């Protein structure tokens, strides 16, 4: 049990507990807080893998902007606890084992091919410069497209959330 493995298990446990908490909480703000915990745990895992820039971007963009947007909307819409549902309890009872089966199948497929995907060289530190080179040389076209996409999204969000002209 070397230190990286220990850190992995701690962060993985944090992520899974956060995800389970997202399902079990009844108030959306608590689910949002659990999701933030999951994202921070994932950022820690990215750091463990040596992807430092992606970890920082994950916290800044996902944890610091997208989730803030979610929290704002929950506050503005005054979302309350989830109401009692008329849906069938039996369906829920049958659904949970099926969900576990889904996860098990995915995990088993991955674990089964474990010997085929191996680390070619030990994962080294990914310099931000190499990432930037790749982003602006090989992937420059998708990069410019995403800037266009963000512009469209901003316009869409403004138009959608406008008050109707009385």
């Amino acid at each position, binding site marked *: 049990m070397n230190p990286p493995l220990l850190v992995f298990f701690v962060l993985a446990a944090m992520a899974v507990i956060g995800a389970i908490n997202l399902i079990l909480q009844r108030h959306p703000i608590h689910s949002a*807080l659990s999701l933030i915990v999951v994202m921070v745990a994932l*950022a820690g895992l990215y750091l463990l893998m040596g992807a430092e*820039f992606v*970890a920082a971007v994950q916290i800044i963009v996902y944890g610091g*902007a997208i989730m803030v947007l979610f*929290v704002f909307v929950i506050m*503005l819409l005054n979302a309350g606890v989830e109401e009692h549902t008329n849906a069938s309890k039996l369906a829920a009872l049958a659904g949970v084992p099926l969900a576990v089966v889904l996860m098990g199948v995915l995990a088993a497929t991955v674990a089964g091919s474990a010997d085929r995907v191996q680390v070619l060289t030990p994962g080294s530190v990914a310099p931000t410069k190499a990432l930037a080179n790749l982003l602006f040389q090989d992937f420059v076209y998708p990069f410019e497209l995403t800037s266009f996409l963000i512009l469209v999204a901003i316009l869409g969000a403004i138009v959608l959330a406008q008050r109707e002209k009385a």
Partner: protein
Amino acid sequence: MIDFLAQHADILITLVKIALLLFIVLTVNAYLTWFERKVVAHMQSRWGPHRVGPHGLLQPLADGAKFLLKEDPTPAGVDKFTYYLAPLMALALALTSIAIIPFGPDPLRIFGRDVYLGIVDLNIGLLALFAITALSVYGVALAGWSSNSKYPLLGGLRSSAQMVSYELALTMSVVGVLLSAGSFSLRDIIGAQASPKLGVLGWNIFPQILGFLCFFVAAVAETNRVPFDLPEAESELVAGFHTEYASFKFAMFFIAEYTSMITVSCLCSIMFFGGWLSPFPASWTFTHFLPSAILIPFGLWVIWDGIRYETIFGRIILPGLGTVITALGALLIVFPAVNEFIQGPFWLLSKIFVFLFVYVWMRGTLPRFRYDQLMSFGWKLLLPVSLANAVITASVILVRGGGH
């Protein structure tokens, strides 16, 4: 036992550094409140705290005791978990950001190991600081919402909208610094400003003056200080997002705000003013006696002021304090090795002190922005200017043929 300590010495040294730094930062916070009250008071032609201890120096202790002993009511109908989480989050994030700041260039030799001043030097140091700033919006937003009351909700929403808006200008304004340093690490940024040929002109403030102004203004808005403190000003929304918070939880928000002030001052000194670099040329070795030249006269003045102080307590404490300060100054002259080691931290701490004074000065002088003025300033002026700064810096570097 000894070999357990020897094997895990790195972790132990880091833990000791963390404890020491935490203690120092919290003490500096406490005396920063004293400093602010004194300076603002003198700017307004009044005394400020001067009853509790000589020159009011024990006022922070009295405030601390008040915060600990006051009644801590929890309003009805609050969302308990979020209500308790918000100040904890704000405080934890603010204190974490101090861990990334380097305080000196040279390491200490302790038990045969090189111990650097500063807890860790991340490759992505600056980016990690921005990540922590991004997360600190939650402390404010959740505090406002969970208080189950109108004024905190409005104050919290306004304050977090303000913080999110100025975050963009904050990150864009340091792009120029990053381009010229070529690295996110704070030590490398200081190293890039150390030019033996240009000396003080190599500091980032000269080519990046626009970036510095944008960064400073955006950082003041991020920390919710005057002139951007509408969401928490007393005459406006009662007390903004921390209205419903009483003694100790309010103290946590308070400490978080002052700690982020300290962090911003550290960042300004490191990124734009050369960090631990001396403004004098390296050949002027007599400037190495500047710390002693400041400490010894100051210590003698404190002794002189204390000898005829009003209270007996002051007449004992102040000369004692003055003697300690004078002894420190004399020590630096006697031990040149210590003097050399202390040069870097001395310059960094003086620059941080100057920026903290500027923060307090702005509080005593400037009026507040109205909220719509604040938002239009952030989006329509600050963000385009910082973007323009980034583009200009990048073009200049490209034309010069530099770049990595």
